[in-house]
């Protein structure tokens, strides 16, 4: 029993607990408006949606742990989706279908390689280098589609990956996220890679691959890839990692915290779309788009959470 507690202590820290606490509070609050919030069906559905964010957040968390940041997420997601759906154009009709998923992920890993080399060997600041890579990735994808919306469809396997249930009751994306998470935790705590702070290139490769994997999943879900599919993911990803207690400067963070952060953000977004707070402003004569609330609440919540547990220590 004592060793179980010790293992738990190794994995969970205060920010993680706060994040999980907030999830519970949010669910209870939401249940006041909509009792279905607490139903298992709804919860599993939320977890499934969260998996998309969870996969990309895994990679970004690793990079942030190193003290860097990966701002090329949006278009690496795009590359993942578009290269997977467009694989037949590169590999031919047979291989293109069979290898669509690995191809998409590999392209994302390729972006990661360049990011990693630039940051590790050229010593370029990761913020600006990955920013540049994002623009390059965008440029490449725009070139690839000729500036039009992509016409390719997702393969059957990609569909299966997102809507199927390999394990009864557990949606596939969730399963993927769980497996990815377990591997990540093991890697962080028990392997030399986890201790070796100079594994920059490897972590950027993982980040690129995870982002691309999310793109593949998104494309499978929508049955196609689409323009700017990754843009809505940058802010939530970083927010999820930071809300989960990972220090933006690196060095500190637990993966379970990132899990909590991802679920928290997903539930927050769901709540907003269900409760629709802008309804309350209509009687006042204010017409507000739904997005306004999403943005404002998002921003305020992040800052609020961080003020609770993300503050720098004042050593005076």
């Amino acid at each position, binding site marked *: 029993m004592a060793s179980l507690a010790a293992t738990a202590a190794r994995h969970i820290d205060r920010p993680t607990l706060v994040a999980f606490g907030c999830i519970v509070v949010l669910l209870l609050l939401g249940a006041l408006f909509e009792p279905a919030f607490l139903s298992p069906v709804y919860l599993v559905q939320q977890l499934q949606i969260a998996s998309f964010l969870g996969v990309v957040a895994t990679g970004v968390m690793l990079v942030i742990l190193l003290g860097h940041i990966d701002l090329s997420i949006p278009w690496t997601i795009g590359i993942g989706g578009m290269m997977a759906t467009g694989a037949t154009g590169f590999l031919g009709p047979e291989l293109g279908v069979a290898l669509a998923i690995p191809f998409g992920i590999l392209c994302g890993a390729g972006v990661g390689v360049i990011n990693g080399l630039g940051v590790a060997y*050229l010593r370029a600041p990761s*913020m600006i280098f990955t920013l540049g890579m994002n623009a390059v990735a965008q440029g490449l994808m725009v070139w690839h589609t000729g500036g039009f919306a992509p016409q390719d469809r997702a393969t059957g396997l990609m569909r299966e990956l997102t809507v199927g249930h390999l394990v009864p009751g557990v949606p596939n994306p969730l399963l993927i996220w769980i497996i990815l998470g377990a591997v990540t935790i093991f890697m962080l705590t028990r392997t030399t890679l986890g201790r070796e702070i100079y594994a920059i290139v490897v972590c950027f490769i993982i980040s690129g691959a995870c982002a691309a994997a999310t793109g593949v999943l998104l494309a499978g879900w929508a049955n196609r890839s689409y323009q700017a599919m990754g843009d809505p993911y940058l802010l939530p990803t*970083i927010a999820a990692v930071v809300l989960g207690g990972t220090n933006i400067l690196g060095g500190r963070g637990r993966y379970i915290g990132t899990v909590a952060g991802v679920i928290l953000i997903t539930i927050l977004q769901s709540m907003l779309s269900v409760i629709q707070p802008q309804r309350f402003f209509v009687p006042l004569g204010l017409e507000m788009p739904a997005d*306004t609330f999403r943005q404002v609440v998002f921003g305020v919540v992040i800052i609020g959470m961080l003020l609770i547990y993300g503050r720098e220590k004042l050593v005076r």
Partner: protein
Amino acid sequence: MSVETAAEPAVRRNRLRLSAAQRGTLIAVAIFVIMFGVYGWKQSVGLTPNIINTAANKGALLALVAMAQTLPVLTGGLDLSVGAVLVLTNCLASNIVNGDPLMTTLGVIGVLLVGLVCGAINGVIVVYGRLQPIIVTLAMGAVYFGIALALRPQPGGSVNFDFADYMTRSTFAVPHSVLLLLAVVFFIWIPYRRSILGRAAYAIGSSEQAAYMSGVPIARAKLLAYALSGLLASISGLLLTAITYSGAAKAAIANDYTLNSIGAVVIGGTSLFGGVGTAIGSIFGAYVMRTVGDLLIVFDINPVLQPLFVGMVLLVAVSIGSLRVLRIKNKLDLFR
């Protein structure tokens, strides 16, 4: 008992020496001059006042945002909300900068105040909340954008015609937007730089711990840096409204300006680690970024490829800056 040492050579130098920041600015100027020269040469009609005016206006928009970005970067931080403040002030201006001259003037003042306040809020949270600037400005950017959406759910609005015309035209082929930039440099940047709080910003970026121990007014310096940043972004918002005659709350615009402002700052010679750089360099960095797009058009390259080229320019600029690292003889220096 310690060892004797050989006498150290005198360090006084009499020849003109350029600081690292000045060198960076000169490089940005050189790059811009070359690029713009090529652009003008390739123009089928040559460099007419109209062409110059359009290029100047477009570049000035980014230049102002780049100047806004420079200030927090000098302190060792970053402002990911500059694009959102630009969009917010643009939407606000499309609502209140119209009517008779008095209303217009009040509207302009109102917009500038809003920009100042947005920046100040960022500063307050960074300083008193003790949170990392990149996260604070990322989150607050979302808030400002949300407000912009509330102000202009659909693109539209209007602006006082005389005001807009005055901001965007040229007199004797000199674009007013360039004069605006000069005015900002002379009346905001240079006094700031020579003020105690302005120099304090450099100090904080250079070493915040040493700055604290030296008694530098850290809180006030950071607050001022972020507040001024908001103000400069709002000036750009006014200019944008004057150019487009409307307000639009598009996330793509906000992102584009934020990201490009960081690129402009880097190309202009300011270090992302803080302590080194100037807003003047950022102006030229911004014009370099914008001229890339113009060059593509003029060389008949599919404009669809613009993001690709802009990204490559960014990567090359950063890589060149970092290449000096490969020439370092002592690898331990890298860890300093």
